[in-house]
């Protein structure tokens, strides 16, 4: 089976927001709406400080809490593991927003639909690669098949010991190098 996932290497992210704006453009989002949030983390005390930017978006969880609570089954998971929203079924109740531990669901003002990152899924396939990966200026993002041990993403996860953002909070499919 194909199981899509992403790796984000914060040791390469300079926080340029290219992923955010490219994502907004391809998805037609308003300037204030974003599928990616940025968390600036500062550790240590002057002058021994480590600072990183941690981009957070839908983790496409295997056991997606947003999908479990959706009363209309608008949120669903494709065979290849991408969590999507059926716009026609979404009633804008915001249960998913409350359920998502990553705060990754965003209400679209124009339609009322509670949307999120869809790995640039359009006509039956994810983007190849998604726009956030395609435009990353430092190669901090890798997209690919988590079930293919030979894929670039699997090799990088193994090499860097990349981990989900919050342990086993959910079975997330975005891995982080931090």
């Amino acid at each position, binding site marked *: 089976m194909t199981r899509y996932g992403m790796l984000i290497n*914060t*040791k*390469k*992210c*300079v*926080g*340029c*927001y*290219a*992923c*955010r*704006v*490219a994502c*907004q*453009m*391809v*998805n*037609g*989002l308003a*300037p*204030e709406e*974003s599928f990616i949030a*940025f968390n*600036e983390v*500062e550790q*240590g*005390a*002057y*002058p021994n*400080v480590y*600072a*990183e*930017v941690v981009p957070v978006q839908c983790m496409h969880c295997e056991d997606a809490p947003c999908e479990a609570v959706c009363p209309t089954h608008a949120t669903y998971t494709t065979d290849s593991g991408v969590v999507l929203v059926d*716009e026609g079924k979404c009633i804008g109740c915001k249960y998913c927003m409350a359920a998502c531990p990553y705060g990754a669901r965003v209400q*679209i003002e*124009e*339609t009322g639909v509670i949307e999120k990152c869809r790995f*640039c899924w*359009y*006509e039956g*396939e994810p*983007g*190849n*690669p998604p*726009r956030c990966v*395609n*435009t*990353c*200026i*430092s*190669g901090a993002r890798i997209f690919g098949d988590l079930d293919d041990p030979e894929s670039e993403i699997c090799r990088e996860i193994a090499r860097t010991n990349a981990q989900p953002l919050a342990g086993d909070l959910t079975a997330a499919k975005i891995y982080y190098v931090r």
Partner: protein
Amino acid sequence: MYVKEALMSSKPTRRTFLKGTAATAALAAVGTCSLGAWQAQRAEAADDSAKAQGPSLCNGCSSKCGLIATTLGGRLWTVEGMEAHPYSKGTLCGRGHGAAQWAYSDGRLTQPMKRQNDGSFAPISWDDAFAEIGAKVQEIIAEAGPEALAVIQDPRPSGKYYSKRFMNALGSANVYTHAAACNLSKESGIQEATGATNFSVDFANTKMVVFIGRSYGDGIRPSSVKSLAGAADAGARVVIVDPRLNNTGIFATDWVPIKPGCDIALLLGIANVLVTRDLYDHEFVEQSCTGFPEFAAQVAEYTPEWAEGVCDVPADTIVELAESLAAAAPACAIEPSWRAAFGCAYQNSFETARAVCAVNALLGCWGQKGGALITSSPKAGDLDPVKFPKVPEPAAKRVGDEEYPLALAGTGTNLAVLNGCNDGTVQGVFFYNSNAVQGYAQPAMWRVAVVAAKLVVAIDVQMSETALASHYVLPECTVLERFELPEFIGGKKHFAALRTPIIERVHPDTKSCDEIFTGLAEACGVGQYFPFTVEELAEAQLATVGTSVEAVREAGIVELADPGFAFGTPVFKTPTEKFQFTSAKVAEAGLNPVIGYVPRLVEPAEDEFYLVGGKQGIHSHTMTLNLEALNAISREYGLERLWMAAADAAELGIADGDTVELSSSEHTGTVTVKVTERLKPGVLFMPTHYGSTSPYLTRAQGFGLNMMDFVPLHLEPAVGSTMSQEVAVKVRKVEG
């Protein structure tokens, strides 16, 4: 080829398409969209014939990265970085994506405007604007000569050609770039030492690189970030010298916090160690340099202990850096920087640039693998003099060149125009793509200066603070709506690229740069120097380098003849044809010819702070502040905040998110504070570009502070840079 399979296979979503066409904008406006209408539109959008792609060059900053734009039904949908362009290398930064949407911004100028007696602006036709400007120009020439006219421009492919040709055709040599508020000191200093105005680090092979204030992660060019990321991956030592742990810190092995404006002491301390401990490259110094004995004698004073006293970097650190550089040499370098800490910041910026070059010379890294590389740039050859008539050399010298002889010839110092307006030597000023009034020096002083001028014309896409201070404002169409002259790109390889129109002009009453300057020239009686279209000129220029508009348009970018770059000691194009530890020109300007110490000018008092500024990756100074997508990021993440060291905040009882009043000798303003461990105590950091005062830029106006408001007006001796960080400030907590 620029067409990417991935993009071609993707299809727009419902919302993408709803936003993607002008026709559906009307539907959205009334708030209804029937299912049937949506299905019809979706079918149209799914039809690839509605989709088109074309190449252009980004205008988010002056890097002009190659981009591929995709439109749906004639409206811009997405942009992506051009693979073959040496600056984008397949990706665009956030600013690039945001700036691509400029055509649709609600902050644009849509028609020519004229300032009224009450200070407000009213529309005027192009014909009337050109005629009135032409008459005023003639009046100024009749009364004071053409040397009373000037143009200031932030270089863009068409702008740098047309603005200069226009001014020279009128008989004036007064052509200036933005450089005095950017990289003038750095480039002038590098030129005095090496003969070149810039150099690059060979990141692919370097073992150690030292950044002085510059941050690739904040003043972004994608290729630079990629190069550095690659070097870091390969295990290079990356040292960041900066009072602030900037956004390049993620790649750094070392952060060396330093007292602002004192980088020169660190560099001279390193030079002292290299010379006195005999760690320098004798062969290079003896064969390729001039003035080393004088430099060595002088640098003996600059011991690491002395340097520590000036710049507050421990002497042990200075010794260790020098020894490590010597061990890595010649595969190491001090990075050349850009605006940052010595582009135009301090009284010693020119000299700091020379000191950077001196350390690289001692390391023998000029032209070496992993070291400091001087490369060449292509340019168009001579054109048919009948079709493109030569403009006579203006009789009078450029205003300011005498007082500021070390300013780079290609840029001059635009602050000479400010002074010239004040003393009456300059009476007519044109600004192209330049927000000088807000960004180049004290805005209050600029306003006083331009009020004194008889004619001020601003050419811009938006009502900048400079436009607000002008008599006439001429609206340019935005980057993806226009064709421009070729951009020639230098480096190890040479390229030519073009801006080509991707979308129709959204506002039909805007014009492109070439149309505006040609119209101005005709109105001013010098139309005979512009008997060609921009396309004809582009074709002729490209023919001289062996390519064509069609070829560049088709491929997006064309590689030109191989300049034959090779590693090895470069030819130094200085008057002595050697690397210059001493400079006759610097001596003639009345300064110490030997590279040495110059202090910063302004020192804070006991209760004051140093104030340093810096760019953020999503903005290009004041230019991009009002763009919807980028302004939203600034607001969501509080990017306008003033950074304060946690230790200072604790002492002053200031918490993260508090509002403070910041004041200098020139200005007072309030702003929110970001408390951080990423800053040297005693120093405040302010993003330089916020605080717009233009009511036309609705989302930028009044958001954050403009650093230049706080900095007293004074020019770097002999160079004429704006000394953008020679300021001390007080800060106190106020109720938010």
